[in-house]
């Protein structure tokens, strides 16, 4: 699954996903999901470098042979599946919650705040960020972040379409994901996205002006 740019009928570049994974983790084989979740638990406890396939198999309650069969690419393919699963879970959560929000501002604020809290309290992610930073950067390489941003935009777009035109709706979700990741990767002294007031300030100051000014529609 990749994000690409295609031209719309006016010749403007718009993002598109080709093709889109389902947001429902239920469509994964249960064993795959168990293995992916098991990896996350192991990483949260002792990090990525020390997590082996036997560890993952034991934690998941399956045989090593099963893990290799489901993930012929080995540990890194388990990892990338696990990341994808977590992202999809988070996005499903955010999308469901955002249905309650009354305004574009509230959608963005609640979504970004919840995402930040989720990620800050994520055991595996926090372990990597604090102890295995290079491995984390490698997992979240530029290309993979690219895919994550596009996915975030696509999955949350229906939420924003209540308030925005379709291409702006997709841009909003991508933009929000981008900022959440930026502040997670490089914390700031004066902005904490786990503080809802700080999130509201960012949304009001930088995002709403760009999403609601009609003059910017080409």
């Amino acid at each position: 699954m990749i994000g690409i740019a295609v031209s719309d009928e006016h010749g403007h570049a718009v993002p598109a996903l080709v093709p889109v994974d389902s947001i429902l983790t239920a469509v994964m084989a249960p064993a795959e999901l168990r293995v992916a979740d098991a990896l996350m638990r192991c990483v949260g406890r002792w990090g990525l470098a020390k997590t082996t396939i036997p560890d993952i198999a034991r934690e998941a309650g399956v045989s090593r042979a099963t893990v290799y069969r489901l993930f012929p690419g080995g540990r890194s393919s388990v990892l990338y599946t696990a990341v994808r699963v977590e992202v999809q879970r988070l996005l499903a959560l955010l999308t469901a919650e955002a249905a309650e929000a009354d305004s574009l501002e509230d959608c963005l604020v609640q979504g970004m705040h919840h995402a930040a809290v989720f990620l800050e309290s994520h055991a595996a992610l926090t372990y990597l960020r604090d102890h295995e930073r290079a491995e984390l950067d490698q997992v979240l390489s530029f290309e993979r972040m690219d895919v994550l941003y596009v996915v975030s935009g696509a999955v949350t777009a229906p939420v924003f379409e209540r308030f925005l035109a379709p291409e702006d709706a997709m841009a909003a979700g991508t933009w929000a994901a981008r900022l959440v990741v930026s502040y997670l990767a490089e914390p700031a002294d004066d902005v904490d996205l786990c503080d809802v007031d700080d999130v509201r300030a960012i949304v009001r100051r930088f995002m709403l002006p760009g999403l609601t000014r009609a003059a910017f529609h080409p």
Partner: protein
Amino acid sequence: MTDQASLARTRIMEAAIACAERSGVRGFSLEDVATQAGVSRTTIYRYFPGGRSQLVEQTVTREVARFWGRLAAAVADLPTLEDRLVAGLVIGRKLMERSTILANLMDPELLELVEAVQPSEPLIHGVIRDYMREMLAAEAVAGHLRPGMTPDVGAEYLMRMTLSFMSSPGGVDLTDDTAARHVIRTQFLAGVLA
């Protein structure tokens, strides 16, 4: 460091870049660099006692710094802040795609490279932030900033967005000037400029 020493180091690093451009960062050896630079391996170790990994780290760091410097120079004569940011993004992507080293930096398999560039990241981010702050200070003087916006707050934000977009365009086609300008106007500057 003497002039001669710094010249020698530069020559070795440039040889390393030439080898990396040719064979990729994983593909070149100290022997290749020695041949390319016209020096012995011993000489390389004299300037880079940490060996290949130190050479890689310093070369990559230098290339990243040069990338940003080159960008700043390329956009310096453009009339408006918006023009500079648009051109910066477009040219930046092109430069990244053309450079084997920078492309390698984006390759998730190269943990060595990721580790190599980490120590210098805060420095680079500071340089970009300062660059943005200077431009915004000029906009402030001209009365162009939105009420309540300051060069400091704006610079932090523009630095984050620039770094993020440069490495992960997120579906936006940065070879398309119109698309790039739309992103700059809406996501970078709408909250910053009046």
